[in-house]
């Protein structure tokens, strides 16, 4: 019995060459463009590398400098975490609301779906430039509109207090993908559940909180994790919209790493920075995953519990 199954498996594996061949491009791509650079940057983080000359080994010096001798490191980390703390919940709520709206059976809803999704397709560079025009305090359209209703708009990109909010608003623009994921999941909720709830006399809000939300918790988990990662890696927008200013109030961690590498030419140090962020993201993701057992609900979970297998 045992030997037979082994044989069968071995035979299968020989035959499995073809599938491997099919995924070979992806494997090569992964090794060359992801794993390779990943390992390389880890090694580099232990070197001092002023890019125009050759690297010298410095041990954990880069990490030491980061923690003990670089105030900007803490500032950038703080700004980025703050941004994530505002951006992630806001983004989730907006995406969820939009997803609910576009599931409504209305006339022309397809057009709205397209409109809401459109910003996700436009390149980040174009979005940054357009927001730059919108937020310009002297000639920007936003302050013009505010002035029409009698409000003197703040100097969005000049006042350090407002700049981070500016980035949050501009980032929320790219909510389309998340909305779409919510949308497909909400569409997948069996209609019977709602019908049953309606018969029991549950109102719309009750239905939303007792049916919709529990059913889409796996998607919420997914979106929380991806948007936390996206928020912590935010670069394009600050690079193009504010350049980290005003007064370094939007000097995000991504920009800090980028500038260390390509402006100050300290590639080893920048690699160390990047690895630290990797660890931060890893820990955050793990925490979220751990917590998920208390609030994420999978359909097959109930069955398992019923059978008491674990």
């Amino acid at each position, binding site marked *: 019995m045992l030997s037979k199954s*082994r044989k069968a*498996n*071995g035979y299968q*594996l*020989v035959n*499995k*060459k073809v599938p*491997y061949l099919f995924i*070979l491009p992806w*494997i*090569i791509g992964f*090794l*060359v463009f992801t794993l390779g650079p990943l390992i390389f940057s880890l090694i580099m983080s232990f070197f001092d*590398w*002023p*890019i*125009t*000359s050759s690297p010298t080994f410095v041990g954990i010096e880069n990490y030491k400098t980061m923690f003990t001798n670089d105030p900007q490191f803490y500032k950038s980390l703080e700004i980025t975490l703050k941004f994530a703390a505002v951006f992630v919940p806001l983004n989730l709520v907006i995406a969820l609301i939009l997803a609910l709206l576009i599931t409504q059976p209305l006339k022309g809803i397809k057009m709205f779906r397209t409109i809401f999704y459109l910003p996700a397709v436009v390149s980040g560079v174009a979005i940054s430039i357009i927001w730059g025009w919108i937020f*310009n*305090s*002297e*000639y920007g359209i936003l302050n013009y509109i505010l002035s029409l209703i009698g409000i003197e708009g703040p*100097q969005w*990109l*000049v*006042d*350090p*207090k407002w700049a981070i909010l500016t980035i949050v608003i501009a980032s929320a623009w790219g909510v389309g993908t998340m909305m779409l994921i919510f949308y497909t999941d909400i569409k997948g909720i069996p209609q019977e559940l709602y019908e049953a709830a309606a018969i029991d006399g549950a109102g719309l809000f009750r239905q939303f909180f007792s049916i919709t939300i529990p059913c889409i918790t796996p998607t919420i988990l997914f979106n929380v994790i991806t948007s936390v990662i996206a928020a912590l890696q935010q670069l394009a927008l600050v690079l193009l919209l504010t350049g980290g*200013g*005003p*007064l*370094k109030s939007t000097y995000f961690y991504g920009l800090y790493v980028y*500038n260390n*590498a*390509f*402006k*100050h*030419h300290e*590639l080893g140090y920048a690699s160390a920075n990047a690895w630290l962020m990797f660890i931060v993201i890893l820990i955050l993701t793990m925490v979220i995953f751990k917590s998920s057992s208390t609030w994420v609900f999978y359909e097959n979970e109930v069955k398992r519990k019923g059978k008491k297998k674990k």
Partner: protein
Amino acid sequence: MKLVKFKSMFFLFIATLLLLAGCSSSSGKDSDTSTDGKVKLRFATWDVGDDVDLQQKMIDKFNEAHENIEVVLEAYGSDYDTKITAGMGAKDAPDIMYMWNYPQYKDALEPLDSYIEKEGADYKDNFYEALWNYNSADGKILGLPVGYTTHVVYYNKALFDQAGVEYPKAGWTWEDLQDAARKLTNKETKVSGFAFSGKPDPYDFEMFLWGNNASYVDKDGNLKGNLDSKESVEVFEMFQNMEKEGIAITTEGSGSTEMKSGKVAMFVYGAWGLTPLKEAGIDYGVVELPSFKNGKSVSILSSSGVSISENSKHKEEAFEFIKFWSNEEANKERIGFELPVLKSVVESEQLEQDEIKSVFYSMLEKSEGYTPASFIVKDWSRVSDNLNYVFESIFNPSTLMDPKEALKNAAE
């Protein structure tokens, strides 16, 4: 079962590695010489659009005239610095590169002094003297000058006419500028007399300090006693006061956007503004920078040159090309978007008589003999970052730090 799986994975891994090795070795050969035995040179430019077309045409001309050399243009655009940095890190920098920030890249560039010497003294003398300083680092010439600009004051003629203010003339002072700005500022029509960047690039801003007999650092690169000297504080106070008084606005960028809108009467800018402002329909004039009471009118140079990578395998051929790139003919070809750097071309094209371009040349002559801090301070990019922050805190309307204190802290 596991063993078989492991084996196949291992095989796959080796195959991938071999494949990669194959790729890299063959591409290595390619960059040396092309198939027909010509020396192939890669040339990186930061220009975009029409400028690149013009450059390609000039390169075609060069390639036709040289049987043994083939120059290939690589237009990196706005990502220029990132890309050549990455290229240098990978020991795969282009043979020839446009260059301006010499101190930062000096270790990866070929010193050109011996090449230039071979061309004779007349060759070197035909370039404006001030340009050589800007195309060197540590006393070695690292690039041949291609273009430059000094900074001048652009003024909007229409706004001057409306306010009945006389056009500024060379030899004017900052007080004259402030007087004019006061008259030109009009709250009702939202016209500002003067505009300057609220977060000026420290490299550019040093020229104002020079004008008041100050600088960021001394010969040895010490900020203390220089950046926070009485003279340099005066400069910052003057700019801040203009802002406080409301006769000047600070801009988010260089100020050219604001100038284009026709709501700003004067701003300081390089030759980059000549064409865009004309296209925006602004009838402008340019005039030399104003001078300080006990000082001078001095501008910093923003210059560009072409350099050879230290790792290039064909430096002789590369020099042949950069010589071509900075010769008279090339200077004339570029005249539409670059100020010529050769005295002979300025003479033959009569630029000294040109009402607008002559201003940049007279500014150039006045600006000889100054060395920007970026050439003196070792880790300028860090220092520049810090200065940038301090300057912003002085000019940002929501902070308006006291210059004296801010600069004193920065110097320490």
